[in-house]
């Protein structure tokens, strides 16, 4: 009698081994081609293998929808707060990033074969979201807002999810003092005083001094920044009414939007300061050669102020690609990235505002009413 099941026969083992080896040999090039961006178009009249690129879109907003060339993208690989779209044809791609009740971000970006184009989308609330900072609050912790013209104006163009009550009487004996209010009031007063001091200083240094008779040419003093703000390796400054962002980082740490692998527009050509570093792109899986694309980087980018007067500017809290511009008709969030147009989204409308960025918050004073402007719709 023999056991009914005999050991695995050698021929069986060999068959499995060679089958799996064949599977390895056949599928390895497919996996590598796929990973490097090659796609086979099954639906084309003449089937063709195309070298595609990708796009990596960071976006803080929740529930975003991404459209590439007006078609919603569904096969997105999602990282934390970012989406990776692959298999994009190497051409100029129009990208929409939208979400309910938020501004839509739109940009045209060049996709190149085997390369991932990085970008950061941002979506501010369509209706301004604020948190009032009032002098008093009631026993329940609700901010007490006195019915004034300003407060009515503010709530006609903004909304809040914070707890508040409208006071019909000016009596304050039963109310609690909000400790945040005097601090904020002082901060605004100090900011205005500092601004005045700076303006006076600039006026003084612009007064005619003794000059040699032979001195000619325009003064460079007016080109000195009236104010400069720095964060990390970025410098934000004003020059002749325009706002510029300057990169001070080393080549290795330069933000991606300062560089491009495509030919820069003519007006930027003069600002190209380094072109020696090259991106090596393995493009030789089919042709077996390697292509070097020149990477061109600038040191400064001009911010689009939409032909409006800049009243104030600052970095956007917690984001190195965005800045806050206070223009004559309100406060805007503008992106530095100038590959195609710079998206600008109005955060708060108004022509008599003071803006302060402190502790990662955007604080605004409209006449006597102070509040924090929120950059996302609070989740209840």
């Amino acid at each position, binding site marked *: 009698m023999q056991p009914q099941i005999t050991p695995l026969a050698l021929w069986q083992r060999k068959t499995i081994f060679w089958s*799996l080896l064949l599977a390895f040999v056949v599928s390895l090039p497919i996996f590598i081609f796929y990973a490097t961006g090659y796609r086979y178009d099954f639906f084309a009249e003449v089937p063709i293998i195309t070298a595609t690129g990708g796009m990596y879109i960071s976006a803080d907003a929740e529930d975003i929808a991404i459209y590439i060339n007006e078609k919603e993208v569904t096969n997105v690989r999602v990282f934390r707060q970012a989406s990776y779209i692959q298999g994009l044809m190497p051409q100029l791609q129009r990208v929409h990033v939208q979400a309910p009740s938020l501004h839509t971000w739109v940009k045209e970006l060049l996709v190149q074969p085997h390369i991932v184009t990085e970008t950061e989308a941002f979506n501010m609330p369509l209706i301004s979201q604020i948190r009032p900072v009032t002098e008093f609050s009631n026993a329940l912790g609700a901010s007490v807002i006195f019915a004034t013209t300003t407060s009515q104006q503010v709530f006609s163009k903004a909304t809040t999810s914070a707890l508040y009550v409208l006071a019909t009487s000016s009596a304050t004996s039963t109310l609690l003092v909000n400790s945040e209010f005097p601090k904020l009031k002082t901060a605004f007063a100090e900011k205005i005083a500092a601004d005045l001091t700076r303006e006076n200083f600039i006026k003084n240094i612009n007064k005619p001094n003794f000059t040699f008779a032979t001195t000619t040419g325009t003064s460079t003093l007016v080109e000195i920044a009236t104010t400069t703000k720095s964060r990390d390796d970025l410098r934000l400054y004003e020059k002749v009414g325009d706002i510029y962002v300057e990169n001070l980082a080393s080549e290795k740490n330069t933000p991606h939007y300062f560089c491009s692998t495509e030919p820069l527009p003519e007006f930027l050509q003069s600002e190209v300061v380094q072109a020696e570093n090259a*991106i*090596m792109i*393995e493009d030789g899986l089919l042709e077996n050669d390697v292509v070097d694309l020149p990477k061109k980087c600038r040191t400064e980018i001009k911010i689009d102020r939409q032909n409006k007067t800049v009243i104030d500017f600052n970095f956007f809290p917690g984001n190195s690609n965005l800045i806050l511009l206070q223009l004559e008709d309100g406060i805007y969030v503008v992106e530095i990235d100038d590959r195609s147009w710079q998206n600008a989204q109005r955060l708060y409308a108004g022509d008599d505002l003071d803006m302060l960025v402190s502790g990662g918050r955007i604080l605004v004073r409209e006449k006597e009413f102070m509040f924090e402007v929120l950059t996302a719709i609070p989740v209840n």
Partner: protein
Amino acid sequence: MSAPAQNHLLPYARRDDFHVGRATEFTGKKRFFYRCLEMLPGLASWITLIGVVLLSIYVPFVAAYFVIAFALFWVLKTAFLSYHLRYNWKRLRHHMSLDWTKMVSRFKYNHIHHVVILPFYKEPASVIGHSLEALSKVNYDLKKIIVVLAGEERAGEHTQIVSQQMQEIYSAKFGHFLVSVHPKDIPGEMAGKGSNAAFAAEKVRTEILDPNNLSYEETLVSIFDIDTVLYPDYFNCLVWHFFTAENPLKSSFQPVPIFNNNIWEAPAISRVVAMSSTFWEMVQQERPERMATFSSHSVSFQALYEVGYWQTNMVSEDSRIFWNLLVANNGKYNVIPMSYPVSMDANAAPKLWQTIVQIYKQHRRWTYGVENLCYILYHFSQNKNIPLKQRIIVSLQQAEGYWSLVTNPIMLFILGWAPIFLGGQQFHQTVLSYNLPFVVRDLLILAMFGLVISSVISLTLIPSRPEKASRFRYFVMAIQWIMVPATMIFFSAIPGLDAQTRLMLGKYMGFWVTPKSR
């Protein structure tokens, strides 16, 4: 007791270097050569791991292609091994269902005697008693079984007390019941199972086999770890394989060690590691040309006697005895897989961290079996009577085994991501950089389907649920396999690398006895 005379040894086994344990036993060129062999596995592993890191830094594209190829290779290797595992599982279950008494009835085997050597150190009487109790209940004529309870002098009174206790209970049940106490501090010996077993084997030869005129060729020696609990038909199954083997005296017989004695008490991490070891042995059972003896196994006394028993100067004697036999028999020796189980203990200490330390140390000892690779390569260079093809194939198989044991899990689960982090900005901007984690992750998920097979098989190999254990434990036992990537790294790759590095640096390991408790 004097050492056995040399004339019974096979010609090659008479060489002075036959039982070499480490390079320090040599002098001159041989010492240098053996030392190089000791350094080889560690160097190969370290060069591989460092090489992947350097590739990721300097040629990240090449590293990324390599990682994808390796992940794909892993998927297919998993499929290959899972097929073997599933096949052996069917065979194991079938063998367990067979009536082996009936199977061996066609043979005349009354003349066959079995020597069962049970080496022990400080294991409690309950563990030893459990093993002897199972041995006393096998479906075999117990009068044909010679039990050798092999204790250690260095364990002190414990050896005497436990041996006496066991002798009182079990000596009448077996044909013979011999207690041997291995003297401590014998010059040239390493304290461990090998030296104890070799001492016991010689004692049983001189005190039982020779006085009773029992033929060495008709005596089968089964050496069992002290926690080994036999299934009832072990000896019938062994006899069947012995009689049906092409060359029974040139064969060792390997059961499947299932570490399930205490599986309901052991923590999940211990169960996964233990069952993984069982699965590896099951896979090996279906490709015997790669097998060496491991842990509990059986062999004819004649074969053992011809090579001077187990080596007394090294750690992994259970595998080394096979390599001794292979080189002494000029390559004409093999392992016959029995596909029949023996039960052993999974690691379980009173506290979880103690269990983890125990598992690590046990696996470091097992993976220190890499010292066998040096032995194989050395004697393959010396014994030209072994066919060249066999020497090359066996060398490559064993070298690949030790190399992949250490490097594969680390490359797959850690260094697979290295190009992404070390590849630099230029690599980071490419589609390949972004796709690499997805491709590798998807391939690894595919490979994880092999774990489903493992999970199902493991549930069929566990003993009945004790009343105190809830049914929920079945669920835990099914999903515990998600820990495999971690256990592969921490209880396979890292202890393996530890062992290889120690050997490479000449920091030789001693025998560490895994504590047993129930």
